[in-house]
């Protein structure tokens, strides 16, 4: 089976505000390449400001890359074509509290991507919303609720429902599990793994929790200052971290790893 998502020499740099003759650039992400297959999970770890979130934004299309290409099933994705991209690559944000519009009901929220990207009529859309809500472990009654009536974990589930409702192939989890408490987190992880099996999803997991990374991911990429310092199988890297930064990170979370 070929690669589902191929990333070639992707990089991002920002122009810092300055004078015309004194323009400086801030490189958020050095050129990097990787590929990911269906049913697989790639974890991206790194310290704050290492370019993890920039990578997520580039992949999902919220930012335009400075160089490089993103190929999905061998097809290059246009930088500004959200319609093409959002049906295949979806993202779950870190804080689901702010990503749900407070004045829309759950039904309206989930209806939006369907309305914009599919030709389904209203009945079919409602049916699909019901089905998706059940898939993520919510009730169909929740359709008429507003986001403020849910707890954090439920909001995360709604974000997940919103992500999977278009039947995507890749889902990006940008620290999506960080804000949850351990029991909810493991619930979400099991849910995600179930969905991965059912739908053949590929995940890109951005996290700083090595416990989750080890449990969840097949491949691991370590970013530091916008550069890829290690890339390979998760087990190999965590067993024998080569780079200093990875060693530090593994050491610091060793306690947690030993007691899992």
């Amino acid at each position, binding site marked *: 089976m070929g690669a589902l998502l191929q990333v070639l020499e992707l990089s991002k740099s920002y122009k810092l505000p300055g004078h015309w003759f004194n323009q400086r650039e801030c490189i958020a992400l050095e050129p990097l390449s990787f590929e990911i297959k269906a049913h697989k999970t790639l974890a991206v770890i790194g310290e704050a400001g290492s370019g993890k979130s920039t990578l997520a934004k580039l992949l*999902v*299309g*919220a930012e335009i890359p400075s160089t490089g290409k993103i190929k999905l099933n061998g097809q290059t994705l246009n930088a500004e074509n*959200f*319609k093409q991209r*959002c049906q295949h690559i*979806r*993202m779950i*944000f870190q*804080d689901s509290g*702010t*990503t*749900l*519009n*407070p*004045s*829309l*009901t759950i039904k309206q929220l989930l209806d*939006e*991507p369907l309305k*914009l*990207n599919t030709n389904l009529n209203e009945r079919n859309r409602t049916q699909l919303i019901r089905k998706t809500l059940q898939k993520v472990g919510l009730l169909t009654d929740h359709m*008429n*609720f*507003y986001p*403020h*009536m849910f707890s954090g974990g439920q909001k995360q589930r709604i974000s997940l429902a*919103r992500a999977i409702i278009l039947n995507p192939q890749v889902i990006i989890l940008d620290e999506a599990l960080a804000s949850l408490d351990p029991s909810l987190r493991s619930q979400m992880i099991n849910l995600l793994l179930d969905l991965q099996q059912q739908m053949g999803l590929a995940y890109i997991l951005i996290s700083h929790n090595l416990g989750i990374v080890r449990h969840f991911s097949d491949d691991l990429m370590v970013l530091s200052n916008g550069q890829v310092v290690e890339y390979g199988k998760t087990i190999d890297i965590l067993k024998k971290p080569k780079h200093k930064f990875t060693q530090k990170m593994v050491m610091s979370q060793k306690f947690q790893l030993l007691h899992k």
Partner: protein
Amino acid sequence: MARNRIYQEEEFPSPLVQSWHYFRQNKVVMFGFGSFVFLFLLAIFSPVLTPYSSFENNLDHLLVPPAWDVNGDVSFLLGTDNLGRDMLSRLMHGASLTFGLSFVVVIISLLIGVFIGSISALTTGIKSIFLNHFLDVILSIPSLLLAIIIVAILGPGLGNTLWAIVLVLIPQFVHITKNAVKDEFSKDYVLASRLDGANSFRILSYSIFPNIIEKIIRQATLAQSAAILDIAALGFLGLGAPIPLPEWGAMLSNGLDLFYIAPWTVYLPGLAILFSVVATNLVGEGMRHALKQSKEN
């Protein structure tokens, strides 16, 4: 017949309905809101409700005091003025001029202001700055003075003063819309919606306006109390509504000479202006309070 509630019906209040619940809790604010609705209905239905026409001269009943006075006549409940016109009818007609027109003025400037403001928020750079600030020059001139200038150029009349007030109120709406939309645009749910494939216009109308409508309405109530005062002041100066029209400010200046003989010709329109301004301000204040409360929870 009262409906029997067999099943426990659940209510899902939208954020707007929730703010309304907070709004409703304050008794004083609800009184202001009731007065506001009363004035609004009066402004629409005054031609049907008034006992006399506002121009009708009852020459045998000049300067009749209000009905509670010893010399009062119950057929002229609030007395008559120096030309024998019924004060009650004139005040009621005045509601549609002073209060009703201020409402229309605010609606017009709100529409224009929100339009310009949202375009300004959607664009960037010079275009945005130009749209945001090209009407700011108007803010440097007091609204009354500007209205006087416009009237001096175009000639006195109610229409000209109304345009002047519309012009004065627009920049407030431009600014508040631009800032509110900009604030909302930086929130994550807009990005999420954009990633769903929504274009800017859809995001604006579907995602953002429901969240900022309260702010705009609140600004509108504040603008209306200013508009009422401006219309009345220009009427008082003789620049606004022409003489026979029962505009409250014009009525006030008309009665000024008779203050010692017939004080009701002055204090009644004055009270009417006070009442309408207090009512609109109470509504605005209640809205501000409700907004704050719903944000805190």
